[in-house]
Structures are given as structure tokens and as C-alpha cells.
């Protein structure tokens, strides 16, 4: 249900509506959080049932079938460092959002892009993580960005994005992974992280029911034997193409995240302003919609300087190119207009089946309309 997508016009309208004329985009949310000590449930990792969902959009047809309105939902989750010098990153993410959507949708043709861009801080901050819902329309994405509460002045080294990665791994339900495809996950920071995950922090961030929710989502985690950050990322890689995008070239950062993600998944990000270009280059290469030899031109065409483009190309040359395209179900993914018997079905019905089956098998409920 629903078929709207992102557009520049709706983005402009949303920024007018949600962003104050002066000050940072998150000013109102920061003030509210200061007064209440709480995050808005839309971006509170514990809000709306904790689990984040990326689901297909359907419209019920008069014949009882469900029509896929846009395409296979493709989740892109990002968590951006907003500690210390990166405190302005929400404003940057907001500014580059139209570019991000346009470039990503260009390399993800036929998909229904569902974006969740959150922020992370440090365990000593008031809010370690703001985790939004997956969204596909400008109004909701902009609204959620303005509800973030960055710490700005806080943050030490290392930082704590691993709590966000934990949620991405165990508290995310996506249709893409159900059909054997993978979504995209990006962690953006200039600092190293930590190796260990703490139960108390998990409960503080995701609420006391976190382990119940993890189980509801199909995972079993023993609170007394929590996975390490490396374990979490390894699990995440089963359902997402996950990358660490490194801002600034500091060796301890590179060393830590290379150990966690592997060298092929740590990609240079010259500045957060270039997030759309780097993300879309990675996605395009992974999907097979962009060739490595075309990346430099693609970047330059999209306002990346020569030197930054060369840096990015060197960095993305090592990622698992074509990883999505090589998945067995890649070519079978449902497309706009496909019909499903039930909205929870994995696959659409075969059009041949639809035209030849008896009415009962195409959605007419048993008992028929002869009751009373």
C-alpha cells in the first residue's frame, strides 16, 4: 500500500516544513530531547517495536491479488558519526539527500529504495544511537533526519557505532534478505570503534525487551555471551553488503575497521559531502550496474574533484564487485506490477498460473461469497 517515491519537489517542501530557518536542522529535536530526556520514537532505536522493517509495497487488486507497486524493496541503512568534529553531519546528510537518492536510484533500477540514515555517538553521550525507520519518501526521510539528536561536542576515541551495527544485524527484517538478496549497510566515521558489546548498553539503547525482539526476529543471542563487534559484522554480511566509509586517513581507524570488516570493505570517503557519490559507486559496482572503469567518470560527472575521484576509485577497486549480481536470485527479483497471492509470499505468482488456475487458487477465499 503506497506508491510515492522521493522527488526534489517533495524534498524542498519537506525541508521548508521540518527545518528551521536558522540553526542546525536538528535544533528543535535537540531542544525537545533536552527537555524530556527522550528521543522521538521514530528515531529511538527502542521505538516502534525495535525491529526495523523494509517491506514491499502492494496494492490490493479487485481479484484479491496484491500488486507490487514499485519494485523489490532495497534497504540502504547508514549510520553517521556525529561526535566531535563530525557534529554537523546531519545537516550535511540532509543537504546531500536528493543527490543521494538520485544517484542510488540510478544504480538500483527497478528497486524500491528504502533509506534509513541514522547517527551514532559514544556510550558516554546521552544518546548513543538514533536509528530511524526505513523510508522511501522525502517528507518522512527529512522529518526523521531533523529528529536526530547529535551530541556534537561529545565523543572521544574510540566511538561506539557497533551498537548501531548490532541493530542492523539482529534487529532488521528485510524482504530482500528473505528472497536471498542483500541490502546495503554503511558506517561512516573518522574514528576506531570498540571490540566488545555490553549488555547494559544494549538495553539502554534498545530497551529491556531487546533479547525478546532479537528472538522474534529469528536470532538467538545469549545476553551473557554476547558476540564481539567482529562477530556482529560477520553476521551482518550474511544479509547486507556492509562497508565502513572512512573519513580522514588516520591509521588507527583504518587498522581497527579493516580488522572488523576486512580490507575490501573499508572505503575512503574524502568528506561526508561526497557520501552520495561514494555510496552509489559502491552500490553500482556491487549490483553490476556500474563498471569499475566507468567509476572515475561517474564521480567526476557528479561533482567529485579529480584527486578525490582517483582516491575513491583506488579504494572501491577492492570491494566485492558484482556481489549482488552473483546471488542466485538476483535475476528473479520481483518487479513493479508483479502479482502476489498473499502479501507475505516470497515470490509473485507466475502469470501463466494466474490465467489458467481456477478462481479458488488465485485468491478467492474458501467459503466464497455465498454466506448470508
Amino acid at each position, binding site marked *: *500500500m*503506497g*506508491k*510515492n517515491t522521493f522527488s526534489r519537489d517533495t524534498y524542498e517542501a519537506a525541508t521548508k516544513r521540518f527545518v528551521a530557518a536558522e540553526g542546525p536542522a536538528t535544533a528543535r529535536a535537540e531542544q525537545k530531547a533536552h527537555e524530556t530526556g527522550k528521543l522521538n520514537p*521514530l528515531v529511538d532505536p527502542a521505538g*516502534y*517495536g525495535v525491529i*526495523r*522493517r523494509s*517491506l*514491499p*509495497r*502492494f*496494492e*490490493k487488486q479487485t481479484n*484479491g491479488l*496484491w500488486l507490487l507497486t514499485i519494485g523489490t524493496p532495497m534497504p540502504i541503512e547508514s549510520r553517521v558519526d556525529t561526535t566531535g568534529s563530525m557534529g554537523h553531519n546531519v545537516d550535511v546528510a540532509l543537504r546531500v539527500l536528493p543527490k543521494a537518492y538520485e544517484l542510488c536510484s540510478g544504480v538500483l533500477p527497478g528497486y524500491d529504495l528504502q533509506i534509513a540514515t541514522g547517527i551514532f555517538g559514544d556510550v558516554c553521550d546521552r544518546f548513543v544511537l538514533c536509528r530511524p*525507520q526505513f523510508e*522511501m519518501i522525502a517528507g518522512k526521510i527529512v522529518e526523521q533526519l531533523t529528529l536526530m539528536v547529535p551530541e556534537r561536542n561529545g565523543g572521544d576515541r574510540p566511538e561506539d557505532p557497533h551498537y548501531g551495527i548490532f541493530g542492523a544485524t539482529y534487529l532488521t527484517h528485510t524482504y530482500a534478505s528473505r528472497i536471498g538478496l542483500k541490502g546495503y549497510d554503511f558506517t561512516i566515521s573518522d574514528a576506531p570503534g570498540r571490540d566488545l558489546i555490553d549488555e547494559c548498553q544494549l538495553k539502554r539503547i534498545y530497551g529491556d525487551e531487546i533479547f525478546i525482539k532479537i528472538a522474534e526476529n529469528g536470532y538467538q543471542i545469549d545476553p551473557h555471551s554476547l558476540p564481539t563487534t567482529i562477530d556482529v559484522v560477520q553476521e551482518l554480511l550474511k544479509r547486507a553488503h556492509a562497508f565502513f566509509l572512512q573519513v580522514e586517513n588516520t591509521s588507527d581507524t583504518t587498522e581497527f575497521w579493516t580488522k572488523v570488516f576486512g580490507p575490501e570493505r573499508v572505503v575512503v570517503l574524502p568528506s561526508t559531502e561526497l557520501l552520495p557519490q561514494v555510496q552509489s559507486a559502491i552500490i553500482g559496482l556491487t549490483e553490476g550496474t556500474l563498471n569499475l572503469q566507468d567509476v572515475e567518470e561517474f564521480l567526476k560527472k557528479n561533482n567529485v574533484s579529480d584527486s578525490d575521484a582517483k582516491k575513491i576509485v583506488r579504494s572501491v577497486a577492492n570491494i566485492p564487485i558484482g556481489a549482488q549480481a552473483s546471488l542466485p536470485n538476483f535475476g528473479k527479483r520481483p518487479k513493479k506490477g508483479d502479482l502476489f497471492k*498473499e*502479501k*507475505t509470499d516470497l515470490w509473485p505468482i507466475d502469470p501463466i498460473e494466474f490465467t489458467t488456475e481456477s478462481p479458488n487458487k488465485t485468491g478467492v*477465499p474458501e*467459503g*466464497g*461469497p455465498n*454466506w*448470508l
Partner: protein
Amino acid sequence: MTKKIYTVTDLGPGDGGKGGVVHKIATMMRAHTIIKVGGFQGSHGVCTSRGERFAFSQWSCGTFEGIKTHISSRMIISPGGLLNEADVLRYLYGIHDPFSLLTIDETALCATPYHGIASRIKEMARGNNPRGTIGTGAGEAYRYSQRYSHLIIRAGDLARPDFKDLLAGVRTQIQSDLSQVNEWEFLPGDREAVEREVNLLNDDEFLDHIEKYFREAAKLAKIVGHDYLGREILTKDGVAVIESSHGVLTDSYYGFHPHTSAIRTLPCFTHAMLREAGYGGEMVNIGVFRAYAIRHGAGPMPTADPKMLESLLPDSHKEENRFQGKVRVGPLDLVQLRYAVKVCGGPSAFDGLAVTWFDQIITNGEWLICEQYPEITVLKFPATDNREELFTFCADILGEKLGIPVRMVSLGPTEQDKICK
């Protein structure tokens, strides 16, 4: 194609299982629209065979099936609540644009948080003799609309330039009505809550907040003219279902005073609305009740038996809240059921009965029925788990005792567990 409307009426004091019955009928008959009447405080639970489970408030019980909801002129709405419910549907259930499934009659009455505050304070002032309310303000909004016509807020008013003045007028009237609140007596445990309510009532920022949310709801919702029901919905071929809140036993006239709703809950009022909208097609009237008696909130319940709580409501719905108190259950009360049927016009006013939660009775192995107070008859089940036989067993007994054929028996939570004949 024919035009047919199913009216689903709770023959008890509410909590009869209307949600599942509406969902079943709408799914089975492929309804194009579900028309809501009553108040938003009704929480109608739906559990689908796909695993979805939600208590609907303003969207109808057919929402998971992509069925449209029309909020009629006979529904009291909470504009702020619409936004909350929409977000839950969007983020927990993947209904990405729930407002595309909703139309609201411009004349639907709006309850405001101020009505809720008034309702809760008045109920707390009744101390240990509650009237029985959920405290959301739906009934209070209705009572205020009867008393102060100039303070009525309808859905069509939400986009008015002077809407804030209207809202402020409601607040001023409630402030005036509660001006002596400091002199009222409250239970010691309620005093802090009363103070919080009064502070909220007097908080100017809260007024701004309400205005903002109400306007937002007005932007997102499709608010349609009063003639939309007759012009667009009732002229469609196929089936529509009326989903009403409350139960006959809380009807403002025929209910047991003072434990009544502010509104009329009898199906004849819904029929009048349909006739007024020009509907001349077929109507099917279904009466709904649980296979045992239940009441959540104050009010007479002669068969209430605290000992049956665990066996009838294992692990569910036993939470107590300040305004409704504990859920009470007991043997099926045929005296109250016959009364409910009678005030609706007698057995001929219904085409069929839907009996819910019969599976719980089967699990317990015996069915307790009260034909006249205080006698309780214990019925033993036939030794079978054949669904058809269980249906027949239930249908034969109730059909004979109430004079209305049983057409649906619920043997479990989902639509697939509801046997229709």
C-alpha cells in the same frame, strides 16, 4: 453484482470480538469498504492467518487486506490518534500509506485531548464509584457537542484558518467547567494524576502542539463531503461492512445507567444513516458476542465470577487500568443477551449470530450458561474435535435459546478459524 451491507453489532457491553468478525466477513466477502461508526476509543483486535496482530482504533479491521475505511458522520475521531495509528501501521505492518485507504466524513465529530482530560478528571472525582470509561474523551466530546454547539469541532473544521480559536474555545469551556476542581474530593492515589491533568489543560504549549498535530492530520487525511457515503461508497457494486464500536449494553438509552456510553449503539441508528445516504440495497445484520460473559469497566454483570478469569482469559487482557479497572468474566449471560436482542428489535432484527472465543470454552471442556439468575447450567461438549460438529453443537444451543441462527463460530484467533455457515 448486488449491493450488500453487513452490520456488525456487539450484543454485550463491548469486547465481544467484533474485530475478528468484521475482518472475517470483509475478507470472505471481499468487501470494498468498511464504514466505521461509534468512537475511536474502541480497540478492535485482528489476528490474521499471515501472522499480523493489531488492535485497530480508527482504521478498520480490513486494513491488512487493503480494504478501504470510511469514517462516517456517526464516528467520533481523534485526529492526533490518526497520526499515531498511521505510523504504527506504516512501520510495524508495512502499510506504507495508510491514509490512502482512509476517507473521513467532514461532519465526523473530533475529540480533543482536552475532552480526554475532562473525562479522566470527572471519573477520578467519582472516587470508588466509577461510571466506567476509557478516558480518551470520545464520550466527553459528544456530551460537549450536545451542550455547546458553538464548540463543536468536526473533521471539516481542522483546516479552518481560525481552528486554533475553536480549539482554545473548547479549552476555555473545560477550564471553566473544572474551575472548582481544587475543591473536589479525590482518592489519595489520584491526586497527583489530577494535578498533571490540570497542568496540561493550562499549558499553552500543549495547545500549540494539539493544533499542529490536528492540522497535520487534516493535511494527510482525505476529508470528504457528507454526501460521499451515498455518492461514492453505497453506489459501488459489492459488499461493505459496518464496523461499530461499543456494545448494545452500553447504549446511552438502553444501557444500564450510569454505566453507559454517550452515544447510541443500536444498529437502527446505523440503518438510519444508510437510509439518509440513499441506500436501498440489501442489509445483513450480525449480532456478535463471546461464548462467555465479559465486561471491562464498571457496570452490572450478574454472572461475573473471578474464579473463571484464568480459565477464560489465560495470559491475556487481565491488565487493570485506572479507568476501566479489572476485566470481569463469567458464564454466558442469556438474560442480558436476550435483553440486547430485544432492544434492537427482537430476533427478527438479526440475520445471524457470530459467536466468538468458543475455542476457549472447548479448551476448558465445559460451557457455563445462565438462562435465569442465579442458575448456571453446565454443558458438556460432545467428544469430538471435528469443527463442523462443534459448530453445530454451539449453533443448535444458541439458535434455540435466542431465536436467531448462529452463522459464525470462532474456533481460534484468525479468519481461518472462523467457521461460517
